[in-house]
């Protein structure tokens, strides 16, 4: 009898049908993979299990009995714990406070008891972190270990991990997978969400594949190889991994010399692809290049202006969600007092705006109308709009930060192709990405961002291991 069974769940968010008949059955003492590309509904499914999403229809059963899980509190009471994709620690509270949060116990909580309880939990699961430290000061991998320890301490029988390896260096990934194997041996049931096929084939017993909100396969992993899994995931053969464009690098277009700012400790750079674990300086670097973070020292020399930036967070900093497609497209031009041809003397010329929007929609295959609020666009179309806007400025330097995060396979390929095309056309392209595959597919030259400093990869060392070592700080091997 499965420990947890999710049967035929449906869920609609506004105009989007996130789940249309998703099912999953979890056996005790197993590691179950939940596979699917971005947007397939994996996170929605597990959030329904965790009581954070109310399914429109379908059934959830635990220990064979149907249950209605209306809140995380109820899920925890049933022994179900979820480690979210993005850290769910409260940044401003200490590690100890985060660990103890939500735990039942005495009402009165003096400092001594707080730290004792936290130390017990952290110690039992081998997490070497200062209980008094603020959660926001932890590295991403450490945060994850705290969250796992916390879940185990609450007596979880089912541990769900949503894309846990996205934020880890390759060696940390191995350590995590090792931990999961140990937990399985102790009888834990684990759901591992991932779109990384190698990880799944490494440790999982069973796999459930979601495509467009529907379970398309659920079977033991034995005998399935990565190619077959890929085909199940996408419904077609996966496109072959791309390769960096074969062009001769031109003269230096962007030079960053000795950059120091909060989070950056001295960057020297001449245009490459940048790998690194999130939190090592990508955001400060992006903010410096966007002009929103002041420099403490060093300078940015833009030798081939203008510079256009594809922001990492398209919903928060890349686009104004409540404005229309057309308005977002020309916003930078409005920022500079209203540049022609769309603006004339500060006034908007509707005909020119319509023309600009139509052109962008056609060229980049954006599935939307010019007046649609950007909020209603899919992630892929939003990102294509960002690309369209960036290219309107005819940049000499294009900086793209995590350009394909959260995009499905089709949109990912489209964006990467466009970046290669720009490079071939003579634009200097800097890609900052936390996806190793992306870095290897796009980067003619590769460097790793570690604690705000750059570690360049010698030409002959283009391998995941070499990059992975530098992601953890080991300089030239």
């Amino acid at each position, binding site marked *: 009898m499965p420990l947890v069974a999710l049967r035929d769940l449906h869920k609609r968010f506004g105009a989007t049908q996130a789940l249309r008949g998703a099912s999953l059955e979890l056996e005790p003492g197993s590691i179950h993979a939940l596979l699917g590309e971005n947007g397939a509904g994996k996170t929605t499914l597990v959030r329904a299990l965790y009581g954070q999403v*109310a399914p429109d229809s379908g059934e959830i059963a635990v220990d064979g009995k149907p249950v209605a899980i209306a809140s995380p509190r109820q899920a925890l009471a049933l022994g179900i714990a979820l480690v979210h994709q993005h850290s769910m620690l409260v940044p401003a509270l200490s590690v100890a406070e985060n660990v103890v949060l939500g735990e039942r116990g005495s009402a009165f909580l003096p400092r001594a008891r707080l730290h004792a309880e936290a130390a017990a939990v952290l110690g039992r699961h081998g997490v070497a972190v200062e209980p008094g430290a603020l959660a926001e000061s932890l590295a991403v991998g450490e945060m994850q270990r705290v969250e796992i320890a916390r879940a185990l301490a609450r007596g979880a029988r089912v541990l769900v991990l949503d894309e846990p390896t996205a934020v880890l260096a390759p060696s940390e990934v191995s350590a995590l997978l090792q931990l999961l194997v140990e937990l399985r041996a102790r009888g834990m049931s684990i759901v591992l969400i991932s779109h990384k096929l190698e990880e799944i084939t490494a440790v999982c017993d069973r796999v459930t594949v979601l495509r467009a909100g529907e379970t398309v396969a659920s079977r033991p992993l034995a005998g399935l190889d990565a190619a077959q899994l890929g085909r199940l995931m996408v419904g077609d053969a996966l496109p072959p991994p791309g390769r960096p464009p074969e062009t001769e690098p031109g003269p230096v277009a962007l030079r960053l010399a000795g950059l120091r700012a909060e989070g950056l400790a001295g960057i020297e750079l001449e245009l490459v692809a940048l790998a690194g674990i999130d939190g090592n300086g990508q955001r400060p670097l992006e903010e410096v290049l966007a002009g929103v973070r002041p420099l403490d020292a060093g300078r940015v020399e833009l030798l081939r202006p203008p510079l256009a930036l594809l922001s990492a967070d398209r919903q928060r900093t890349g686009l104004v969600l409540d404005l229309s497609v057309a308005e977002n497209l020309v916003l930078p031009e409005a920022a500079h007092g209203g540049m022609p041809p769309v603006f004339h003397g500060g006034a908007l010329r509707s005909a020119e705006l319509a023309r600009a929007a139509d052109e962008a929609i056609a060229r980049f295959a954006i599935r939307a109308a010019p007046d649609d609020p950007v909020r209603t666009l899919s992630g892929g179309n939003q990102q294509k709009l960002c690309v369209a806007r960036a290219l309107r400025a005819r940049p000499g330097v294009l900086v793209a930060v995590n350009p394909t995060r959260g995009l499905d396979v089709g949109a990912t390929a489209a964006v990467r192709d466009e970046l290669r095309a720009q490079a071939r056309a003579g634009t200097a392209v800097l890609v900052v990405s936390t996806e190793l595959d992306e870095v290897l597919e796009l980067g003619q030259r590769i460097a790793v961002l570690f604690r705000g400093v750059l570690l360049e990869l010698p030409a002959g060392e283009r391998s995941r291991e070499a990059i992975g070592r530098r992601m953890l700080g080991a300089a030239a091997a």
Partner: protein
Amino acid sequence: MDAPTLLLIASTVRFATPLALAAMGELVAESAGVLNIGIEGMMLAGALAAYEVGVSTGSALAAIAAAIAAACMLSLLFAAFALRRQADPIVSGTALNILALGATGSLFRLLHSAGGLLARAPRVGDVVPGLNGFTAGAILLLAAVWLFLARTRQGLALRAAGERAEAADAQGVPVARLRLAATLFGGACAGIAGAALVLWLSDVFVEGMTSGRGFIALALVLFGGYRPLRIAGGAILFGAASALQFRLQAAGSSVPYTLLLMTPYVLTLLVLALFAGRSRAPADLAKPFRARD
């Protein structure tokens, strides 16, 4: 210590107490993530309720209870829109203030349409010579709020709800319930502050008598950096400024009294200008929270 100085100190404490009471309540509310700018209106409603019930029953205790009840009713209204319907809290709070101003004004006029001399409300006296009941209450409140927020499990859960509601929710903390309770507590404190205006500082109700004290209390929370002791210090500072200003008026200063009356507001602006930017509000303050999609 000579008589004028003693009087000044007493005056300071008298002005500071309602501010401190309201500010403590708002501190708890904001710590849970609720920005309630309607405490001005809640204070006013508390003042009217305290006056009317006080006069008709003659009991100060009943008056205070009525003040709390009136303020809590308004808190519920605020919560219904700002928390449940997730309407913008600034707009909801402003609407609440307008409502309170209009409702207390019209109620008061309707109740006293016959005119004539206004009855006096019962007074709350000293529990210990020199220490008024309200001030004693404020001191106890200060200690209780600090203890709750800093040293209890529920207080931790409340602070988590204000810093990052989704993380608190993921750990099983009942965010919506905590925010509602915090809002009611804030309202109750504002109500008690209003009662203090009518049962101690004055003994009748006057339309609009809060005169911005609720907003000064909001500023005090910022000024005190969300720390109870510092907030109390700020309240004393303002109490002193008000006391001094009255002293100057009484002493026949050449400065027109209208300009002197500006002192608390100008002082608040100054204090905000110096300290607001530096104080770190709970990260999820005034952000709506949806527990379940």
